[in-house]
């Protein structure tokens, strides 16, 4: 009987340690992530504008391709006509 009580107490100790470590880990993680976010926002702010810029580039590319396709179609059409 004494042994059993002992194990339950042990289990509670595990709980204390486990939850402590889990929370410690996550709290440190949250803090690090918050600091990281601030640092990145401070030192690499231009990168956020890069993504739309890249997208814009893609769009421009597509536009050019479209224009090329239209020109090709028009020339083809004219050639056939004549």
């Amino acid at each position, binding site marked *: 009987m004494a042994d059993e009580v002992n194990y339950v107490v042990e289990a509670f100790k595990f709980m204390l340690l486990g939850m402590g470590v889990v929370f410690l*880990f996550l709290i*440190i*993680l949250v803090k690090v992530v918050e600091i990281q976010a601030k640092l990145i926002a401070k030192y690499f702010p231009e990168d956020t504008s890069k993504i739309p810029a890249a997208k814009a580039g893609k769009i421009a590319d597509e536009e050019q391709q479209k224009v090329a396709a239209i020109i090709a179609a028009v020339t083809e059409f004219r050639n056939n006509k004549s």
Partner: protein
Amino acid sequence: MNLKQILISLLFAMIALTSMSEASSHDTAPITEEVSTEKQTYESKTIGELAGSWWQTTGLNALFDVNDGEMTSEPKGAAYEREMTWFESSLGRIIMILIVFILFYLAIAKNFEPLLLIPIAFGGLLANIPLAGMGGEGGMLGIIYNMGIANEFFPLLIFMGVGAMTDFGPLLANPKTAILGGAAQFGIFGALVGAVIIGFDIQDASAISIIGGADGPTSIFIANRLAPDMLGAIAVAAYSYMALVPVIQPPIMRALTTKEERVIVMKTTRKVHRLEKLIFPIVVLMLALLLLPESAPLIGAFAFGNFAKESGVVDRLSDTMQNSLINIVTIFLGLGVGSKLAADKFLVLETMGIMVIGLIAFSVGTAAGVLMAKVMNKYSDEPINPLIGAAGVSAVPMSARVVSKVGSEEKPGNVLLMHAMGPNVAGVIGSAVAAGVLLSIFK
């Protein structure tokens, strides 16, 4: 006491069945004679002997002959085999095959995690085939088991794939919600206490309690290290509760929150810088390295998968990890875990205890997450919908989806999915850390 009475009555039923089957065997014998005489006319055996030897190899005989001395199949090899009891080799198998059919039904008709349940249940079906020894050292399931489950390899590959699938954006956008992923781990340690009180050995109890994290791969990983005998029951329990997230969680969520709390609308999350996502897996791994190297295998595999995804230059690798690789491993993992559904391993009293404790653990974890979210909502300047606390268990992304569903039922148009993903992915990290703590205790 009741169980004993049931067992005894089952015993009598079995005796009646066996005598009936004995009688019917004589009836069926003449029909089979012709087939066997054609094939083996040159054997100097009488027709009766031939029919008898064929009968000896049938599954019917194996199922109904109570004292045929059949051995259990052990992936570790013949040295670990023992003779099956009459119950294990007969009625137990029939019960297990019925359980397998229920699992098929749940997977196909109810759509409960079919990706997990179908391979597991089919593995269970194969493992209960008498005389075939599928789960033995040379059997198909035994080979799979030795290949990746006995050495904890498959769970790590799954973690890699989950890492490659996980987007930490929501967590990075609102880091505070990560704490909820910690609160839900309370289920693990609460269950540990419960299991010890029920009378499980403290090491076994630790292995069982991980079910509270609702994390299949972690459960397998820990069970392998701490209680390999219970692996089957623990894995099946963990995966069943992962599959039952949509059934178990909503009532708990509703019971612990008020209507006003459930309709809280959360602020839209900010845009996350690409660099933050890229650095995050490294940060997690560094923390694991500093605080808890025991959790390195799990967190390492997870971080690798996520890093490959966020690096953006190895799409082929991250694609493989989150699709082909994880699919292949899921097939093997499912079949391997299913091999532990063999009657001689699954139908023991401990399984009942494991299933019950697992359920309590999972419910307590959900409740702890919700309560923590309530507290955070009170003391935080930004509104937090307590429902997202339920996503702190690490069943990704099932519980986040469930949270979102309950949220939009309460208030149409209130989409909590992204907010719930934060605690959900933090729950994965949290349960890996909790697993590391338990491993460090028993090292």
